[in-house]
């Protein structure tokens, strides 16, 4: 047995008996370091005859490998022991509160607008917009509402000039006018947005949200209107069946005009949509008046279709059980937290509206 082999055996023993990381590291440099036994043995290579070099080097490498394996195993063993000792000492009160994760909220009106867009997207409507400040023509005249007509009384308008020519739009219907004037039929759009009326009480706020719908093509009839709204209401309230009633009404810009009621009943002070024998008015609709089409450069002898207007806030209240319309705009932190939606909760066609 050569001197080298003896040293190897001695080191094997030393590794085996070592007690901690520090001891091991000093052994490691004695073996594998610059001046360790392995390197020192390799240095002898120079003085060995060429024909023996290969065998000599191979034997060193064999021992190096042996030692390295033993060393690594020992290191792991000691490390494991250290970790286990440390872990046993570490004990915290896991019931202490977690670090605060700050995720914000999306306003229920925004969520409902996304839900509505999602439903109408499925049946081919695209989203249009218009400005909040409108002129008298787009808000009234083009929509077949003549000046000095009591129909105007239904809108308590905010005016921006003494001549009453510019105003805050009282409904989203001017978007119909803008859309038709800038394009060519067919039109199939929805337009959500802010609307304004000079009205403030328990159930009215000076600003609220409406959704306009417009579908103009060659042969769109009231049957399509009925089907479209039926589909929308069912999807929106996520119910199988919905009780709906079309009641004749009057809007200057549609003819025939109707208001739509949905059936509901009360259960433990909560509204259950879709059944029961009570009626709740939720939207106004009708076939676009030929005068409106003419005003918008659409030929009423070739094109016809329907329009509707829905109160978005009202829908949000019904779907999410919110009692007070005014609370939508009061920004109470508790309210926003309670009724707001997780920003990751994006309504989609494939996932469904609510999670």
């Amino acid at each position, binding site marked *: 047995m050569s001197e080298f082999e003896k040293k190897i055996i001695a080191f094997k023993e030393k590794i085996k008996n070592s007690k901690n990381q520090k001891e091991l590291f000093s052994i490691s440099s004695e073996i594998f370091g610059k001046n360790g036994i392995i390197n020192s043995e390799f240095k002898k290579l120079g003085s060995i005859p060429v024909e023996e070099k290969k065998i000599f080097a191979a034997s060193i490498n064999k021992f190096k490998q042996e030692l390295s394996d033993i060393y690594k195993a020992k290191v792991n063993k000691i490390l494991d022991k250290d970790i286990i000792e440390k872990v046993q000492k570490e004990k915290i009160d896991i019931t*202490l509160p977690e670090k*605060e994760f700050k*995720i*914000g909220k*999306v*306003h229920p009106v*925004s969520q409902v607008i*996304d839900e509505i867009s999602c439903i109408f*997207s499925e*049946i*081919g409507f*695209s*989203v249009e917009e218009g*400005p*909040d*400040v*409108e*002129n008298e023509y787009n808000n009234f005249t083009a929509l077949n509402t003549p*000046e*000095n*007509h*009591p129909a105007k009384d*239904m809108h308590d308008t*905010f*005016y921006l*000039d003494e001549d*009453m020519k*510019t105003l*805050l739009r009282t409904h989203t219907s001017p978007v119909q006018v803008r859309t038709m004037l800038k394009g060519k039929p067919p039109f199939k759009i929805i337009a959500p947005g802010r609307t304004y009326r*000079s009205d*403030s009480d328990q159930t009215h706020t*000076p600003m609220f949200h409406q959704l306009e719908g417009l579908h103009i093509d060659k*042969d769109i*009839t*009231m*049957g*399509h209107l*009925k*089907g479209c709204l*039926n589909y929308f209401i069912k999807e929106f309230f996520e119910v199988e069946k919905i009780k709906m*009633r*079309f*009641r*004749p*009404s*009057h809007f200057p810009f549609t*003819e*025939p005009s*109707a208001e739509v009621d949905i059936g509901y009943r009360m259960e433990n002070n909560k509204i259950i949509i879709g059944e029961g024998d009570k009626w709740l008015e939720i939207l106004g609709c009708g*076939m676009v008046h*030929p005068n409106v089409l003419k005003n918008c450069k659409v030929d009423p002898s070739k094109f016809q279709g329907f329009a509707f207007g829905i109160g978005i806030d009202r829908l949000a209240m019904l779907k999410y059980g919110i009692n007070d319309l005014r609370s939508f*705009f009061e*920004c*109470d*932190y*508790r309210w*926003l937290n309670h009724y*707001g939606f997780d*920003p*990751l909760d994006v309504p989609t066609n494939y996932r469904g509206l609510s999670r």
Partner: protein
Amino acid sequence: MKFTKDWLNDHLKTNKSENQIIEKLNRIGLEVEKVDPIKNELSDFVVAKIIRANKHPNADRLKLCDVDIGGKENIKVVCGAPNAHDGLLTIYAPPGSIIPKNGMKLEVSKIRGETSHGMLCSESELKLSNESEGIIELGQKFNSSIGKPYFNKKSNNNVIELSITPNRPDCLGIRGIARDLFASGYGDLKEIKKVKFKKTFKHNFKVKIEKNKNQACSIFGSCLIKNIKNKESPSWLKERILALGLRPISAVVDVTNYVMFDLNRPLHAYDLDKIKNSISVRNSKKGETFKALDNKTYTLNENMCVIADDEGPLGLGGIIGGERSGTELVSKNILIEAAYFDPGVTRKTAKILEINSDAKFRFERGIDPQSVKEGLTMASKLIIEICGGEVSNFDIQETIKFKKKIIKFDPKLVSRTIGINVKEKNIMNILNKLGFETKKKVKNIEIKVPSWRPDIFGEIDLVEEVIRILGFENVKSIEPEKVRTKPTLNFYQKHFHLAQRSVASKGYYETITWSFSDEKINDSFRENFETTRIINPISSDLGVLRNSLYPNLIYYMEKNLNRGFGDQSLFEIGPVFTGNKPGNQITVVCGIKKQLYDEEDYKRDNHLDVFEIKKDLMQTLVELGIDKEEILIEDKSPSYYHPGISGSISSKDGKHLFAYFGQIHPKITLESYGFEIFLENLVNFKSHNKKSKESLLLSDFQKSDRDFAFLVNKDTKAQLLVDAIKITDKSLIKNIKIFDVYEGGNIPSDKKSIAIKVTIQSDHKTLNESDLSNISNRIIKSVEEHTDAKLRS
């Protein structure tokens, strides 16, 4: 519009029940708003209980009683009855009620300095007996009826209240309602009985419609009734007037109201003896004054329509009568007017003078011009029946001859519009029953529109009539096709949607606040924008269109602070107005953050500072697709930010302003930070700078970090150093990070030290020492050349 089933029976022969009729009315567009038990003269008087009969502080013989009338709170009533005592059940008359004994209308009044809300009644006051000593004492069995009417006149009749849409003036009369029900198969419309009575003398009072510009009056019919004895109306008439929610006044007035609600034919009665010489219907002169029946004096503009005599205005045509010529119980000779006034002029006048009346409500919607004779006939018949007297012939002045509208109607339009086939016979039948005259022509039907339907202009109006009566339940629903030819959201809308959820995901709660704001607060954020005032704001603190989202956000943030919520992050995405024209608006995403330092948290580590808000902003911009490499950050910001702790972010070329951020100026609010993203600018930039992701090259060669510390002037921006480093070698420099900014100590007082770590890596080889020192030297040189920095030694 109110009516009773009983009254409806005058016009409609039907075997349908009240409930069936209500259901039907809703289905044909006459929306039933309310159904209430009928009111009569005595229904105001309710059972009440004296809770405490206190001594009146200023009068020995009076008592000041706390009375339970079944409401939420007890009310105070002053009472002089000796028998008023605690716990007494009696009968209470509220303010507004009329005491049967003397016809006196009760009002809230002060009696010896104490306010009395109504009265406790004696038997004689209610005409129950002659007993006038003390108030009525009811037995204990009435204890359960407190607040309920004492005179429980059994009646199954209800008052049905309709909400009539503005296009249907004809249904502001009970006859019109009956006609609609008849058309929808609910009974037969009764003929109006032809009345014959002797017109014993000639109408010799001069009436003239003047030829004025825009004369509102085109028909003025009148008759004289002489030698009447005006009196209280008979009970049948009083009951009907009460059912309408009106107070009976006298037979003459009650009859004119009755005819108005029965036939939708407004009338006016003048005391003939009070009119000076003649009546002329003319335009008013500017400044003319007139005292109306509502006891108010109005100053008129020019060109309002007045009925005048030689002394001046007697009434405002179609709106309200005047006090001077009003009828009274003693009136002997009267003139009844039935006229036609133009809807537009009537409405305009009433709007300017702010007058609302039943007549105005009808004339502005359009009255049947052919109902003049009918109205005069019915009124004079009733008046002479009740009050006696004799009637003159009718004098009818007419300046424009009314002609019925004629519409050429293609019945196929019905099925084309509503999608179901309706037989021509059915269409004709419905229209005929509604009063349209139909004449079959070769290609179409010629339709004559009845004079009471001013809302019918064209074919489509007739389609509506047909489907309204047929019922929408007959329209067959067509399932929508699930086809999409256009994307749902456009490029901008996608960004709106993303920005909203992006900011929300960083801890901000989305709010929606008014588009208007308080002018004073808004002014702090207005900068160079014009103030846009609302002419008729809901209140003065919501008087202008907002020029920034901050005013409302800060207002509500402070409200939440007062509610005890310290740490808050709020945001809004919505319009900011840049002017008063349509389209003068931009979309801003505005976030605001505030931290309260007195909140204790066992893990609290970082305090809110500007870099917190900058972090949220930068990450939002990145999520919206703005590369950090393509932006320019400068210390330019509007005056509502802290001038030293705020900045702007724009595109590299400075042309597109993406955002402002910083601390809100402490003079506005303390310790608050915010940002504003200008969405259109951002989207505009992106649509002009569309780019796709470069393909990724990963280098496996060793990377090295080199640290540099530079000494710079205090106001030198760190970004300048970063930019100077970046341009040294784009292929080798992979990352630049500022890791320390230091002032004080061994550094000159006008300088600061900035320490930067630069990560260097080649894509092609492992860099050796000399490569690294080469690039290091180039970095130092570039920084020293482009800025005032000196490498610290």
